[in-house]
């Protein structure tokens, strides 16, 4: 009887709504985290500044949107500008560190994140900005008017990741990137311009972060500290999904977002964050190599 009462008390409609919500945030998180994973997997760089690139991307979106009034131009332009910024950052600060202890890259990118975050605060002020959604249609999901835009975010994130995966798999530059990831010295010997591959990879990662920033902008306000939250989540995802593993981090993003949204049915959203921490701790305990990777032989 108690069991029956429990099943009867589960709010199934809420669970379905939260599933949709979880997948949407999960896809954005996947877009952020796959940039982070990419940079880590190929360059051995833990990019602490990733959240700041996300945040600057959102701000670029705000600026371009204000100038042109078109969301899609804002999305593309912000992605390109932040990708260029990423390339510039990589050339000036990370390239000198190639071949040194990977830990020094954490320090350098941490410095970058401090600078960028305070720059944003200085340039744009502490008041949150808003990005207008490109379309405001709704559809009815139980008692809710669910915006189409959210579903579009999920679709677009999936498309970007998919396109990137195809690029990595089939294009000549994708092959260069994978070759560099496998063996840097051999790749160099085969005539691949390894330092430029690194720059390119960092630029792509930065661009992906910026794109997710612009896409996410309409859901919450854009402010200078929004990156912190995301970079922490992305770190959890990257550890849970297995470091440097693209598929794993996408699976982990959706998994963790779903867990968090389900938890927020019962507890407050701030406490729901703890669920992702618990997932992380359990992963570290039982599968420190990551949840979504094949067991190493």
């Amino acid at each position, binding site marked *: 009887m108690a069991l029956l009462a429990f099943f009867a008390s589960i709010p199934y409609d809420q669970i379905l709504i939260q599933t949709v919500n979880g997948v949407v945030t999960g896809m954005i998180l996947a877009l952020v985290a796959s940039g982070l994973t990419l940079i*880590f997997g190929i360059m051995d760089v*833990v990019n602490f500044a990733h959240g700041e690139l996300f945040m600057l991307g959102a701000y670029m979106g705000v600026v371009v949107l204000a100038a042109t009034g078109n969301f899609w131009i804002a999305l593309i332009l912000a992605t390109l500008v932040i990708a260029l910024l990423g390339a510039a950052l990589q050339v000036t*600060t990370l390239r*000198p*560190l190639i071949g*040194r202890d*990977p*830990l*020094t890259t*954490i*320090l*350098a990118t*941490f*410095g*970058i994140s*401090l*600078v960028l*975050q*305070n*720059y944003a*605060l*200085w340039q744009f002020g502490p008041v949150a900005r808003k990005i207008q959604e490109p379309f405001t249609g709704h559809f009815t999901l139980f008692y809710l008017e669910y915006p189409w835009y959210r579903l579009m975010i999920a679709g677009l994130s999936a498309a970007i990741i998919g396109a990137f995966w195809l690029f990595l798999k089939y294009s000549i530059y994708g092959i260069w990137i994978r070759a560099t990831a496998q063996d840097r010295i051999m790749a160099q010997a085969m005539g691949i311009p390894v330092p430029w591959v690194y720059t390119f990879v960092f630029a792509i990662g930065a661009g992906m972060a910026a794109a997710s920033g612009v896409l996410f902008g309409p859901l919450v306000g854009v402010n200078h500290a929004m990156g912190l939250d995301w970079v*922490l989540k992305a*770190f*959890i995802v*990257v*550890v849970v999904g297995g*470091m440097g593993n693209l598929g794993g981090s996408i699976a982990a993003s959706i998994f963790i977002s779903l867990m968090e949204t389900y938890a927020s049915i019962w507890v*407050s959203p*701030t*406490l729901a*964050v*703890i669920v992702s*921490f618990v997932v*992380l*701790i359990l992963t*570290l*305990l039982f599968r*420190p190599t990551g949840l979504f990777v094949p067991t190493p032989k």
Partner: protein
Amino acid sequence: MTQRATIAYWTGFCVVLALLIVAPLVLPEFWRRFLTEILIWGLLAMSSDILIGYTGMVSFGHSAFFGLGMYGAAAALLTLTPPMLSLAILYGLIAATGVAAFVAYFATRLRDIYFAITTLIFSQIFYVIIFTWTEVTGGENGLTFSRPPLAIPGLLSVPFTPDTLHWFVLATVTASYLILRRITQSPFGMVLQSIRENEARTRAIGYAVERYKIAAVMLSGLFAGLAGVLYALQNKFAAPDFVFFLVSGEVVIFNVMGGIGTLVGPIVGAGAFLLLREAFSRFFTEFYLIPLGVIFIAMVIFMPQGLLGFMRRWLNR
């Protein structure tokens, strides 16, 4: 170590110590407080150096140990009557070391970057808990309390003055320095350094590397907690801001600026950082982190040894 180097080292030590003892008598109020703060942050950075410089593990979670030290002291001062200094220190140390043991148990399973990220995430866990558990921790507002008298049980009990507070902090930091220095030269410290140099070989020789690592994190957490207690005593409050991971980041900056693996270096780094912050905040107001961040990046690239790195050998004899 030659006789001469020993004499030079201890002479230098005594001169610096003497200067720090006299300082509060000559310095104006603002700079005295500033100096006390440098010493406290220096102790925190020094505790982190045990991991970064000696064991080769970069901890991005020292804010958790520091913060738990603060909250531990706050708990003792708010719940026990009469509030006692010794119990505040004891509570703070227990809280910090307990948390350090918890973090170490999980984080030491991973190495290098993974360790850094895991400690970072753990410190965020404690931040979220402290931030949301308003009934106990005061949430965003933190806890305020009054400073207990400077008391050694059965010996003396006098209220803290700004000067005695400075001397108390100085004595604690000096004692911690000497203890940590002794530890790094002990067989235990040698094992830690061999883990830094070559973990696989250390394991092959037969040392239980994991246990040494956990012990190192706990030791580090203990002294970080002590720094937290001192900071709580100085400022008479505990706030969740100090558990936030940016504090951990600053601690790592102190280490890199001052020179890792030197113990004194981090204190110098903390001093340099706080002085630069003071100077820049006159021109850049609250955006002082922009020039400081640029300096930090430049130091990582061009001066990885830090300010005192060139005397690392000499300081560790």
